[in-house]
């Protein structure tokens, strides 16, 4: 079984490029060039250099001793929270800004939900002196004021998405509309492993640095490259894609994707796409998505803005369908408590997205000698308000 994208842009039955003709020249141009550009020695050199000197890679692989004792298994944390800008998102935006330059683009657009991808995009645009416009749902702008301020300080223009539910889904629609209106000079930096081919594959490759590093870091610590399990939270799925990538075809490695159950999978307020979704088309790709019987895309819910997306990347839909990955849904409450456990036991306050991944330790049993690597995709600074309100701190 192949878990990577095929030459037509599909992961099994998922993926493809379901885009209006207005986007065809840009997407086709990218499709024809992305692999070639990524393979250029000068591109690789610049990418590696920036990841090292600017982002601060490699991110540590940390053996979480007290967490391991509590749950009686060997827990490792991949510290993406220590990256510049505080999350894994920057791995992708560094890659894509270099791609945009090589494609001759001078203007960058992006969508953002909680603002993490928006900040990571604004950051690399500042670094490269490129014009940057970030679309963000009007509601998200109101509830993520610090990230809006960060983007502005970094020189980006934050444009409110006023249509539909005025959240991430609509910000993505607005970014796509902008790209339709500006087909020549603009590159669209999609923040997750979604969108029309080649985006899911390109984003996955830029994020695959995570699993590439896990391999050699684990070799140093455990004497073997392959853990027994890799675990990551999943919204659109970019941190999960990067965490899983080099283990997809390593049969002895168990892959666990943790979705946001919100108030509960059956509560009507959830973002557990693998359970609640059906095959359909969202933002240019065929994948599992939450929708009505009539094919209208519905609003997901999660306490974590980064997991609050009605679809899931096509690679993950394929991993779910084929049974290659185990999907577990974690509620708001379970995630919030897991965030507190990690803070108290390890002195690390995680992003609420990442907290979802750790929450499975309460219910999913591992053997004492299992090596379980969790991707700690982001830090919790941005979520302090939510933690304060939830725990009445």
């Amino acid at each position, binding site marked *: 079984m192949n878990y990577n994208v095929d030459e037509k842009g599909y992961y099994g039955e998922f993926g*493809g*490029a*379901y*885009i*209006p*003709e*207005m986007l*065809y*020249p840009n997407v086709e141009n990218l499709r024809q060039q992305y692999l070639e550009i990524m393979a250029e020695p000068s591109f690789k050199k610049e990418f590696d250099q920036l990841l090292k000197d600017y982002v601060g890679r490699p991110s540590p692989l940390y053996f979480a001793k007290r967490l391991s004792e509590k749950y009686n298994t060997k827990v490792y944390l991949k510290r993406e929270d220590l990256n510049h800008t505080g999350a894994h998102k920057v791995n992708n935006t560094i890659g894509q800004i270099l791609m945009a330059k090589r494609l001759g683009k001078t203007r960058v657009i992006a969508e953002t939900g909680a603002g993490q991808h928006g900040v990571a995009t604004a950051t690399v645009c500042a670094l490269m002196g490129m014009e940057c416009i970030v679309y963000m749902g009007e509601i998200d702008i109101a509830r993520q004021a610090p990230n809006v301020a960060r983007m502005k300080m970094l020189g980006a223009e934050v444009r409110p998405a006023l*249509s*539909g539910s005025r959240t991430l*889904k*609509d910000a993505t*629609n607005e970014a*796509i*509309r902008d790209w*339709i*209106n*500006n*087909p*020549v000079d603009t590159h669209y930096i999609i923040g997750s492993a979604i969108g029309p081919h080649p985006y899911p594959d390109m984003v996955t490759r830029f994020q695959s640095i995570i699993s590439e590093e896990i391999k050699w870091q684990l070799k140093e610590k455990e004497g073997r490259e392959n853990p027994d399990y890799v675990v990551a939270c999943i919204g659109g799925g970019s941190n999960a894609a990067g965490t899983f990538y080099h283990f997809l075809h390593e049969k002895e490695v168990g892959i666990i994707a943790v979705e946001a159950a919100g108030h509960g999978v059956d509560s009507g307020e959830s973002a557990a796409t693998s359970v609640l979704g*059906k*095959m*359909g*088309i*969202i*933002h*240019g790709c065929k994948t599992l998505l939450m*929708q009505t*019987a*009539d*094919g*209208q*895309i*519905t609003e997901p819910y999660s306490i974590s803005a980064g997991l609050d997306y009605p679809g899931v990347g096509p690679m993950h839909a394929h991993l779910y369908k084929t049974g290659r990955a185990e999907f577990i849904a974690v509620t708001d409450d379970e995630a919030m408590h897991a965030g507190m456990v990690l803070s108290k036991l390890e002195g690390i306050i995680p992003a609420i997205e990442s907290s979802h991944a750790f929450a499975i330790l309460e219910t999913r049993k591992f053997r004492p000698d299992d090596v379980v690597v969790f991707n700690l995709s982001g830090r919790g600074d941005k979520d302090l308000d939510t933690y304060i309100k939830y725990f009445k701190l």
Partner: protein
Amino acid sequence: MAFPQNGNEKNITGMNRIHQKLQEDQKLLSIYFTAGYPSLNDTAKIIQDLEKNGVDMIEIGLPFSDPLADGPTIQASSTHALKNGMTTEILFQQLKDIRKTVSMPLILMGYFNPVLQYGVAEFCKKCQETGIDGLILPDLPLDVYQKEYEAIFKKYGLVNIFLITPQTSDARIQQIDAASDGFIYMVSSASVTGSQDGFGNSQESYFKRIAGMKLKNPQVVGFGISNSETFRQATKQAKGAIIGSAFIKFLTQNGVDKIGDFVKGIRK
């Protein structure tokens, strides 16, 4: 005038209504509206009034929650229509008897996901029974259509309409022309629907370039046509033009009782 009895039973010449219409001499005025807007049950009245007032062809918009190629006007009308309760099934119900009163070509236009969920074959069959002549599904790409759906569309007598834009390469236009059997929907500029006031030199030269390609399919221009002047400019070279956002704005302001005024304003 003799109306076809029902559905897509072929008339004497054996041609789809779109093909017949394209053979007529005049420049074609085509109107887009979103089904279920302003009110859920306005669909049949809007179609009948447009025909009575001399419109040549209609695109009936199937509303979608995430219309990513549409500007604010059509987005708002779609959201409104969905709030009114419009669904694919209700639309087919509303159109059940439309062929008893209307003879011009009717095209359904929408995004692919609702069609996929309805079942593509079932959707096409329903279109044929209803008397729909063609489909415009902007996010159903050419290669997927040819590989998976062309046979189904043809089985049910449906013409599939593809879009081209000023950025579409000549080679791609040739490919689309070869795959088309009806007309080509020529998007006037790099934009979502309803986002401009008039045509400039770049559109003029684009219109000329396409006319010069001598394609086998006639072209109908859409996006950015809002009045008699832009209609005239768009149809200087092309066979016809489609008006969408401007008509929806008119409905928002005037309701469904003065549709004749809108059409006269374009054809003056």
